[in-house]
């Protein structure tokens, strides 16, 4: 039907070549073309942050981008952060502090927080709250997330 566009995208260290419609959202591309379903979609209008991924290292909302815009870029999704047997300190801290309930929002929070902690290795609780405020969670009330981020920061500082 429409013109299809070839793209090459590196996600979690793997290079993918795909042909996509220009209108395909990056979130749909990751989830349904690459089967990386850890990135979740809660609103598709850029507010909830569930779809947050790293785009050349920066957090972006993948529901607000088209797949073609990722052509030639390097992405990271929650699947690249850690595995059940070898979790990232943030993931461990989320479990330790019960910072997730249904877990639907969690990948988006983790991907927003990873660069935050890299840039702010020793954040105050207020700074953590501010960093969390771009994403929505309906289950946890956020307090345990604040604790988890503080713990992860500590673990990461101590290497």
């Amino acid at each position, binding site marked *: 039907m429409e013109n299809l566009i070839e793209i090459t995208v590196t996600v979690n260290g793997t290079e993918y070549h795909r042909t996509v419609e220009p209108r395909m959202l990056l979130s749909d591309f990751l989830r349904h073309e690459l089967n990386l*379903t850890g990135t979740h979609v809660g609103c598709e209008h850029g507010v909830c942050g569930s779809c947050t991924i790293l785009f050349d290292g920066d957090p972006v909302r993948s529901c607000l981008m088209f797949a073609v815009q990722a052509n030639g870029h390097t992405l990271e999704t929650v699947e690249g952060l850690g595995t059940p047997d070898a979790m990232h300190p943030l*993931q461990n801290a989320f479990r330790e502090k*019960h910072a997730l309930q249904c877990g639907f929002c969690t990948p988006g929070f983790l991907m927003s927080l990873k660069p935050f902690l890299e840039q702010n290795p020793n954040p105050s609780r207020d700074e953590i709250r501010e960093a969390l405020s771009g994403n929505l969670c309906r289950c946890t009330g956020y307090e345990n997330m604040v604790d988890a981020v503080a713990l992860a920061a500590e673990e990461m500082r101590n290497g």
Partner: protein
Amino acid sequence: MTAKYVGQPVKRNEDPRLLTGQALFVDDVHLPDMLHAAFLRSDYAHARILSIDTTAAKEMPGVVAVYTAEDLGDFWQPSPMIVQPPPTLEDIVFNPRPQIPLAKDMVRHIGDPVAVVIAESRYIAEDAAEQIWVDYEPLEVVTDIEKALEPDSPLVYEDLGTNLASHVRQEKGNYAAAAKKADLIIKRRMVIDRGAAAAMENRGIVVDWDAKTQHMTMWNTTQAPIPIRNGLAATLGLSEHQVRVIAPFVGGGFGPKIMLLQPEEVLLPWAAMRLCRPIKWIEDRRENFLGTTQERGQIHAVEAAFSKDGKILGLKDIFLHDTGAYNPYGLTIPLNTQTHSMGVYDVPNFYTEFKVVFTNKMIVTPVRGAGRPQGIFLVERMMDLAAKELGIDPVEIRRRNLIPADAFPVHHSIIGQDFIEAIYDSGNFQPLVEKARLLIGYDKFVTEEQPKLRAAGKHIGIGLAPFVESTGVGPYEGARITVESSGKVNLVTGVGTQGQSHFTSFAQIAAEQLGVAVQDVEVTTGDTDQFHWGTGTFASRGAVVAGNAIFAAAKRVRAKILAKASEVLDAPEEELELKDGAIRIADIPEKSISLGELAMLANPLRGAVEPGTEPGLEATEYFGPKYGTTASGVAAMIVEVDPDTMLIDIKKFVIAHDCGTVINPMVVDGQIHGGVSMGIGHSFYEQLIYDENGQLLNASFMDYLVPRSTDMPPSIEIAHQETKSPLNPMGSKGVGEAGAIPIPAVLAQALENALNIDGLELLEMPLSPGRLFELAQAAKNRD
């Protein structure tokens, strides 16, 4: 004795999968050849459908089918009512209007489904839905529940001749007689408006009909997989064993996902059988606002009678309850309001009457709290008003009215949502009030801090509100526990999970009985092929009802283990101990057998099994409580208001809570945190705003404000008290909705105290900065 797990903050078994993107949610299901569905929903709140033209949509490349009500033929049937009114209620009016699969000749609310497109991709399906031309004749709209009952109101159902969906009157004691003896009568009007459940995951379905095996599989974001399986089988003319419904990981429920046989759920299986291809439908956020059920709209005329020493002699409440355009969920919410309106107090006389009203708005069904926050709001506001009138401290007036610890069980002679009289099974309210008062630092705040802060120009106030939550209602749940030959334990139950930590709490109960590690109990929930008896996850009942079924099953498996091991090890049962996945003789540790080996011996491949015995180490048990158990708590907060912007800052928040035996305190605290955040949202940030045409004006997360991390208090301090329920062997009570229930009451109280304006009474919810400003101005101008 074996390791103690119940009561421990065990880390969650489900977390590693959820944290690494490996957990399966409905939209993660990919099937070969899968089609995608999109619904065309009404843009009018009330209109006659004159014609629907689907030609252009059908011609679009990639479109496989477009269905309207007419295409459904005989399959078009109203869904069964999910909840009937209690047969125990006498002399009531009840006009059932269940949901229908697609609007036939009339749409009754914005978002009412009119047609469905099935296409090769979701993008194409959504494009095609826009190419369906519907000729509507707009009709007059009714959105206001008071106007809806006026004689000249437009009617949601012409044939009924009224917008009255139901009318119920109940009384405990005799309010009129009590009022005659009162020193003080207070009458107020209170208004509560709608909010959304707004689970982060929208609704969704994947359905697969395998024509060769004549078997249907549905993945569904539901809180009630088993009733859906049974209902679908009946609707489609299949046997129940031909249908499997799976509720995998579900991204939050909060009530609306208990709804069943909704239009999408009924239509897509029907379409999948015709097209012989799997179909996926994933609701988007806008649809979730328009097409997922909502709650809270009520208007109350409350009257309370007090003696001059602050004792409540009676309460009278007449209210209207907005059910929206259909009423498939019966009377659950207004009955909950009735049974919670006496709160923690000894109210000897209570007259309560409600009318349920049809409006041209989305359907109302329970949302976390489910009518309870409204009941608690009205009685707590009455306590505050009486305290002010009588010059009694707000905490003191509450103390004087608490139900004493020796009064339980307390019979209320008001029929509740579970069809039987509301009874508080147990509780101990006085120490809860004291705990909350101490935690919040009530006395010091009122006598020292507040005067200083006020002198410094700050608008800061305090509130304290107790509440009850009837939880753990019947009818029943069940569980099957099996020791596998690997030594791991398999636990299955019918209730699904939407974040409540079932994979861990349930495992703790079994692990403690069987002497295995919590991680070695593999829990399956919400898959009808694994377990097909049960009702669902609602009314804060999972831990109580399923939890006690698991407790019973685990005890029976334990008994089987001991019997078999006693035979194998040739030792009396009393000398055996279950520990670390093995059974050993207490004082001869080397004489032992692992659970896995024992499981194999209990299920031999050859040889004879004793007649009358069952193979394996397995048991299935059920639990059904006599009636719901009452959890309770007291919330308190200190809040500061900026009088110019009316933005609020909750400085301190505490809650003393009693849910009987706590299985996992970390999980219980988490449930409370989440409930509190939803309560704060529904009290100050969130409101579903319909205009007079029935248009929802804020159907996006840009305009409908779910609380963010920065809207929450810096911490939520929680104190536990364990008054065990006598109604179940574990002594547990539910906690799922607790946090949300007291917030409207405690926030209103604290804000009034903070603003300290003569005549300012906050008798409505939700508030917002704008609304608070208006109310404050109005009160000032009245002076």
